[in-house]
């Protein structure tokens, strides 16, 4: 019995060590994979056609989902805040609360998660299926660096597009909020805008934009990484798409936490 228990503990420890080993190995591989981007992004040939195609695919084609989600979030937030704020006679503060929430936090994170789900899974599945059908090897054989053509363009496209999507998403949330405020109350656009941006400062906007760059980079890089590692046919493609969404979403939350801490530190010490 004791022997069985020891064996069980040993197995559990081994499994834990193996899992830790896998985690650190994957992290190391992701770091090496990402570092190639910085080496190749500056060197010709520049795949501008592919870059613009990807900006269109990854950015423009996400607009519908971002529009719908952002509008509804702003709308619902205002509606949910109204009863509580009315109790304190502070309905006028709703635009400002929504603005701070969507610009500093909800806009970037929500847009990041939407893009991780939509474009991240798309990139993971696309590159994964190219990998398992030898298309990446075919590129390599014809004298083209597939990393430069596939990874650099997608990562660059997503990093460029993401801040615009975040700004757009925050704007749409405010529109949703304005509509909701006018359902329960009556407020002019000028008054809403004045109220929304009354207590907003430069350091409320900047971290969002910086976060958006990092989120865009992360989503595309992680998705390309898992796509590149895809193996074992269609099962591997499915796993790559799944891992792209899960891991990039987790990293988005982690980066957001880090950004919140840095922003807090900056405000306490330099503002």
């Amino acid at each position, binding site marked *: 019995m004791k022997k069985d228990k020891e064996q069980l503990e040993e197995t559990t420890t081994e499994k834990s060590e193996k899992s830790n080993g896998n985690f650190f190995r994957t992290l190391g591989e992701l770091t090496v994979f990402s570092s190639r981007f910085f080496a190749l992004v500056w060197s010709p*040939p520049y795949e501008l056609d592919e870059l613009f195609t990807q900006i269109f695919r990854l950015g423009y084609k996400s607009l519908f989902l971002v529009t719908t989600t952002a509008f509804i979030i702003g709308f619902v937030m205002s509606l949910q805040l109204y009863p509580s704020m009315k109790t304190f006679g502070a309905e006028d503060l709703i635009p400002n609360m929504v603005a701070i929430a969507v610009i500093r936090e909800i806009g970037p994170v929500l847009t990041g998660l939407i893009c991780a789900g939509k474009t991240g899974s798309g990139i993971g599945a*696309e590159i994964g*299926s*190219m990998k398992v*059908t*030898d*298309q990446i*090897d*075919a*590129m*390599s*054989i*014809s*004298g*083209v*660096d597939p990393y430069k053509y596939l990874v650099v363009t997608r990562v660059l496209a997503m990093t460029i597009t993401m801040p615009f999507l975040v700004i757009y998403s925050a704007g749409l949330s405010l529109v949703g909020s304005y509509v909701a405020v006018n359902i329960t109350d009556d407020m002019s656009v000028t008054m809403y805008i004045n109220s929304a941006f009354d207590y907003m400062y430069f350091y409320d906007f900047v971290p969002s934009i910086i976060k958006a760059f990092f989120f865009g980079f992360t989503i595309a890089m992680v998705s390309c990484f898992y796509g590149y590692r895809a193996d074992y046919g269609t099962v591997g493609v499915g796993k790559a798409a799944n891992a792209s969404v899960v891991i990039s979403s987790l990293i988005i939350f982690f980066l957001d936490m880090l950004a919140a801490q840095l922003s807090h530190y900056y405000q306490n010490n330099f503002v």
Partner: protein
Amino acid sequence: MKEDIIVVKDLYKSFKGKKVLEGININLKKEENLCIIGKSGSGKSVLLRSIIGLIEPDSGYISVFGKSLDDLHENEVIALRKKVGYLFQEGALYDSMNVEENLAFPLKRQPHPKSHKEIKATIRLALQRVGLLSSINKMPQELSGGMKKRIALARTLILEPEVILYDEPTTGLDPVTSKEIIELILEMRATNGISAIIVTHDMYCARLTADRILLLNEGKMDVEGSFEELKRSDKDWVRAFFE
């Protein structure tokens, strides 16, 4: 005596402890068609991929056009690959591009690319050569298995390689299409002097295309000869391939 353009010595490769290649030695001479046959999973494709540098062997020496792959920088390997074409088992056409774009892709990315007009003309010529000019605007999803292989061959030829590695060129094709592919392989050598390593288990293909046949058995390669010589081999397992 013609020069060796590909030399492989003592090549070893294993995956997760499973030995796939064990001490492989081969050499390919200029304008020679070398066939490698063996059971499925015997490591034939791994060998081809190692030769082109897509798989890194555990140990051994590979030299292509007199240059050892070990001594080459990544950029030099990429440059060397332009002289070595590779026909993938499933064609590996880029499925987000139509046939014309598939063929234009490598041409546009050469160090000194041709003009737009010249690229168009080269593509049309390559498609004419494989008899599929009418499919120029089709997407890969609209093509049959045989058409995909012929388009893939056109894409391989468009860079004017000096040697082509064929991975199962006739597998999964009907006899008529198989014959067309075999004729194209023979035509490549006759008209352009292109050497070839053909990995296959289609004995009809091996008989028609091979100057020399090597048999890969459980990661080892110890039987070599012409089709007729191997057919008369005193080893049962060798003869089994030809019966």
